C-alpha cells in the first residue's frame, strides 16, 4: 500500500445510500423488462401471433392427379405418375466440377447447357429440369448441392406412344391438356387442385403444416371408344401404306357402324408424345379430324342415293354416258373408261363421272344440297375434339350447272375423313345417321333416318360391286367377307387450280350382309407406282378390315370367296377420278 492510496482512503467515503439507490434503479429496470415481457407474451400475444401468421403462413397448391385415359377394354393410353421438378436458387448454388459432372449426367444435359441454366439468365429462380422421374430426382438430391430444390408434381406418360399420339394428345408441363382427348376432356380429366395452409421459412421451405383448406379432387378417368388393338393394326397398316406409296401423309378411321363409336383413329406422320422435342406442325396434325380434302368419287354414292330416294332412277336405269365425254358450256367432263351407256349400278362400279354428272343435273340443286347437308357435310361432326373441321358445301343457290355436275363426283366440295366415314354409315345402317362418339357408350344412341332403308340397301348392293374384279377396287376385298365400299382419287387443289398431286381414298364396310365395321382410308400425295384410291387405299382397307373382323370374332358371311387371289394393282384396269 502506498501513501497515495492511504491518503485517498482518508477522503473516500462510499456512502451506502448511493449503491442502494443505484441497485434499486437497476432492479427496477429489470422489473420493467418483466412487465413488458408479460404484456408482449400474455396480453398482446394474440395481435402479435396474428401478425406472425400474416408474415409466414402461405397457402400452397396441392396438385390433383389427372384422370387416366383408357381404351374400351381398360388398357391405359395416358397415365400420370409422380414426378419431380428440379429448380435452383441461382444465388445459392455452389457446386464442384465433380458435382457438375454428376448432375449433368443424371439429368442427361451437357455441362455447357447446365452452366448456362445456372449462371445465365435473369432472376434467382430457374428450373433445371422439369418432370424428372422420382428416382433420378432422389439421386440428384443425394448430391446435396446447396441451392438445389425439388418440387412435386405429376408426369404424364403415354404407353402406346406414336400409335395413339393424335387421338390422345398430350399435356403441357403444368399438366393441362394441349391436344387431342387430353384437351377435349380437360375439364373432367384435370380435376381440381387442393390447397393447404403452411408455415414457410424465409427461403420458402415448408416448416410446418397448419391445416387443409381444400382437399385436391383428382381428375376423372375416361374410357374411350377406341380399341387399342384395332388402333395398333390401323396405325401399322397406315404407316406401311404411306411408306410403300411414298406418300406425304395419311389417315385411317375405324367406326362401329351400329353405335357410331370411333374404334380407331390413326394419322401419319406421327410423333412420340413421351418425347416432344423438335416437333413439327405436320407431325402434330390430326388429319382425320382437322384437315379437309376434295373427296372425289367417294361422293358419288350420295348423288345416286338422292336420285334413288326421289324416284328419279332405279339401280337398273340406263344412263347415256356419251362415249365417256360430256360438255357443259366450255367445260368437258371425261371418264377414264369410255362407255356409251351404263346402268346406275355400273356408274358406281366403274366410277363414271359422266354418269354421275348426268344424274346430278337431273335433280334440283336444293335436293342434292339437302342430301349433302343431311349426312353431315359442311358441319363439324361435334366430337368435342379440338380443331374439328366442318368442310365446305357451298349454298345451292350459287351453284352453276358445271359446279352441280362436278360436285356429284366430289369436286368443288371439301370434307374431313371422319365426316366421310360417318356419312357412309347410312348405307351400312339402313339409312340411319348416328352421332359419333369418342368415348365408350353402353347403348347405341338414337339416330336420324336420312334415306329410306330401301335406298340404303340399293346403294349398299352397288358398293359391293366396286370390289368385284370388274370394279375399281378389287384390292379392297376381304377373304371370307362381303365388302361394300367406294374408291376416291382426287386431284389436289392448290391456289384455286387442280394439280397433278392426288388424294387417294377408300371408304367401306363389312360384313355387307350385316355391317359391323366401317373403315375410311385417306392417303395424301402417293407418289409410288400408283395414285388410285383402289390400289393405294384399297389394300390398307382390305388388310385392316380382315384382321379387325377376325380380332373381333365376327363370323364370315361369304365363306365361298376364300379361294380368290388379290390381283396385283393395274392402274389401267381400274381407274376412277
Amino acid at each position, binding site marked *: 500500500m502506498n501513501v497515495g492510496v492511504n491518503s485517498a482512503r482518508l477522503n473516500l467515503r*462510499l456512502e451506502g445510500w448511493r449503491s442502494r439507490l443505484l441497485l434499486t434503479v437497476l432492479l427496477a429496470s*429489470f422489473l420493467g423488462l418483466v412487465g413488458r415481457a408479460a404484456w408482449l*407474451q400474455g396480453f398482446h400475444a394474440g395481435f*402479435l401471433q396474428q401478425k406472425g401468421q400474416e408474415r409466414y403462413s402461405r397457402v400452397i397448391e396441392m396438385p390433383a392427379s389427372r384422370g387416366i385415359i383408357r381404351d374400351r377394354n381398360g388398357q391405359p393410353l395416358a397415365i400420370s405418375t409422380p414426378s419431380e421438378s428440379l429448380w435452383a436458387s441461382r444465388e445459392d448454388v455452389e457446386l464442384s466440377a465433380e458435382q457438375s459432372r454428376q448432375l449433368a449426367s443424371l439429368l442427361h444435359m451437357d455441362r455447357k447447357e447446365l452452366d448456362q441454366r445456372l449462371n445465365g439468365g435473369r432472376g434467382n429462380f430457374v428450373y433445371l429440369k422439369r418432370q424428372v422421374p422420382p428416382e433420378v430426382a432422389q439421386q440428384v438430391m443425394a448430391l446435396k448441392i446447396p441451392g438445389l430444390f425439388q418440387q412435386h408434381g405429376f408426369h404424364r406418360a403415354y404407353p402406346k406412344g406414336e400409335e395413339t399420339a393424335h387421338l390422345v394428345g398430350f399435356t403441357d408441363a403444368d399438366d393441362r391438356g394441349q391436344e387431342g382427348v387430353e384437351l377435349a376432356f380437360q375439364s373432367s380429366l384435370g380435376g381440381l387442385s387442393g390447397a393447404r395452409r403452411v408455415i414457410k421459412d424465409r427461403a420458402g421451405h415448408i416448416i410446418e403444416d397448419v391445416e387443409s383448406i381444400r382437399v385436391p379432387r383428382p381428375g376423372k378417368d375416361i374410357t374411350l371408344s377406341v380399341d387399342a388393338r384395332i388402333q395398333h393394326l390401323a396405325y401399322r397398316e397406315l404407316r406401311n401404306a404411306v411408306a410403300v406409296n411414298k406418300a406425304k401423309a395419311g389417315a385411317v378411321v375405324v367406326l362401329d357402324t351400329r353405335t357410331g363409336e370411333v374404334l380407331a383413329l390413326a394419322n401419319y406422320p406421327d410423333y412420340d408424345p413421351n418425347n416432344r422435342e423438335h416437333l413439327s406442325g405436320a407431325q402434330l396434325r390430326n388429319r382425320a379430324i382437322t384437315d379437309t380434302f376434295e373427296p372425289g368419287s367417294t361422293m358419288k354414292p350420295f348423288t345416286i342415293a338422292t336420285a334413288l330416294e326421289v324416284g328419279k332412277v332405279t339401280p337398273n336405269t340406263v344412263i347415256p354416258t356419251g362415249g365417256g365425254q360430256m360438255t357443259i358450256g366450255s367445260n368437258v367432263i371425261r371418264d377414264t373408261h369410255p362407255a356409251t351407256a351404263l346402268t346406275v349400278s355400273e356408274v358406281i362400279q366403274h366410277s363414271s363421272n359422266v354418269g354421275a354428272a348426268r344424274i346430278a343435273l337431273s335433280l334440283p340443286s336444293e335436293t342434292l344440297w339437302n342430301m349433302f347437308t343431311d349426312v353431315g357435310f359442311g358441319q363439324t361432326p361435334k366430337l368435342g375434339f379440338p380443331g374439328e373441321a366442318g368442310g365446305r358445301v357451298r349454298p345451292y343457290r350459287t351453284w352453276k350447272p358445271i359446279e352441280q355436275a362436278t360436285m356429284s363426283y366430289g369436286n368443288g366440295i371439301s370434307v374431313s375423313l371422319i365426316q366421310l366415314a360417318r356419312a357412309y354409315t347410312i348405307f351400312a345402317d339402313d339409312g340411319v345417321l348416328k352421332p359419333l362418339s369418342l368415348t365408350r357408350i353402353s347403348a347405341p344412341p338414337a339416330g336420324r333416318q336420312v334415306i329410306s332403308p330401301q335406298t340404303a340397301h340399293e346403294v349398299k348392293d352397288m358398293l359391293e360391286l366396286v370390289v368385284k374384279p370388274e370394279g375399281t377396287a378389287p384390292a379392297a376385298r376381304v377373304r371370307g367377307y362381303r365388302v361394300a365400299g367406294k374408291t376416291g382419287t382426287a386431284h389436289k387443289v392448290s391456289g384455286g387450280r387442280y394439280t397433278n398431286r392426288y388424294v387417294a381414298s377408300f371408304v367401306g364396310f363389312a360384313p355387307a350382309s350385316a355391317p359391323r365395321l366401317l373403315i375410311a382410308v385417306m392417303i395424301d400425295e402417293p407418289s409410288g407406282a400408283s395414285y388410285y384410291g383402289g390400289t393405294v387405299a384399297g389394300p390398307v382397307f382390305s388388310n385392316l378390315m380382315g384382321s379387325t373382323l377376325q380380332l373381333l370374332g365376327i363370323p364370315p358371311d361369304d365363306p365361298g370367296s376364300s379361294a380368290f387371289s388379290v390381283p396385283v394393282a393395274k392402274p389401267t384396269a381400274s381407274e376412277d377420278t
Partner: protein
Amino acid sequence: MKPFTTPRLLRSEYDMTLLWTVLALLAIGVVMVYSASIASAEADRHTGYRSSYFFVRQMVYVAAALVAGFAAFQVRVEQWQKYAPVLFGAGLVGLVLVLIPGLGKEVNGSRRWLSLAVLNLQPSEFMKFFVVLYAADYTVRKAAFMHSFKKGFVPMFIVMFLVGFLLLREPDFGALAVMTAIAAAILFLGGLNWRLFVVLMMVLSVGFVLLVVLSPYRFNRLIWFWNPWADPFGKGYQLTHALIAFGRGGWFGVGLGGSVEKQLYLPEAHTDFLMAVIAEELGFVGVVATIALFVFLVWRAFSIGNRAASMERYFAALTAQGIGVWFAVQTVVNMGVNMGMLPTKGLTLPLLSYGGSGIVANVVALSLLLRIDFESRQLMRGRAP
C-alpha cells in the same frame, strides 16, 4: 449488508452460487445460440452451409473464456488496480487500430473488429471492462477531489470524450452508452458531488440527443422504434419480427428448436436478438428465468462490492459494483431493444449472445468479481489476500 452475520459465506472460499449462475448463463447461451443459428448457418454460403457453424465456434469461445477466466482469477486485485491505466491505454490503442483501414474489418457498415491472423478481436468489448477498472482506480486516486468540478470531474470527462469519439468513428453507439453509464455510475458511487452528477446527467442527455438528431440513421431508428408497424417490411422489419417472436412464445414458449422467427426472418437472431428467440422458444417463463439469473448476478456484484467497501477495499468495491452496472445496463438495453422499449443499438446480451470477444471479456470481468469476493473471504478468515 452485514457480511459478518452471514456464516454461510464462510463455508466456502469461493462464491459458488455466483459461479454456477455464470455457468448457467453460458450454458443457456450455447444452447440458444445453436438453436437460433441453425437455419441461418445452413443457408449461408460463408458458413459453408454447416448448421453447427456458430454452435462449434461458440463452444470454442466459451472454452477459451473459461481458460482466460481461470487465469484472470489468479491475478490479485492489487495487480489489477496497478495495471488499470495501462490496460485502459491498451484499450484506447485497440480502438484506434480498428479505425485503420486494413487492420479494422468492416461488417454491416461498422468497423468494430481487428483482423488478427487467426481471430477477430472486438476491442470495444474489452474496453468496457477496462473502463470499469480505470474509473474505479481514478475515483480512488481522485477521492479527495470528488467535490471539485475541475479536478474531480473534468479529467474523467475528457478521457471519456476521447473514448466516445473513437467509438463513434466505428460507429458503436451501444458500447459508448454502456461505457458512459459505467463511468458515471462509478463516479456517483465514489461520492461525486450530487450537484455535479446532475449537471453530468444533463450534459450527457443533451449530448446523446444531439448525436441522435445529427445522425440520420440513428434518428430513423429512434422514429421507427416508436411505431414499428408503420413500416413493418422496411425500417420496422427487425423489430416487428422480434415482437412477433415474443408474441408467438406466449407464456410457455413453442418449445426448444420450434422458433419460426429464427428461420431467416429475424436478422441477428443469434447475436443482438437472441433474447427474442429465447422468448419464442421458452416463453415468458424462459424470459423471467434468464432475467432472474442476471438480477442475481447484479445483486451479487453489489453485495460483493459493499462487503469490500466495508473492509475499506475501495478499488475492489467500485470495480465489483462497476461490473454489476455494466452487466445490468447492457442486459437491460439489449432486452429493452428486443422488446421494443428502446431503439436498436447493436448491443449483445452478455454471456449469451454469439461472439468471442464479448464472452471472453465478460468471463474475465466476472472472474475478477469472484477474485474480489475470494480476497474478502480470505481477509475475514484473517488471511492475507
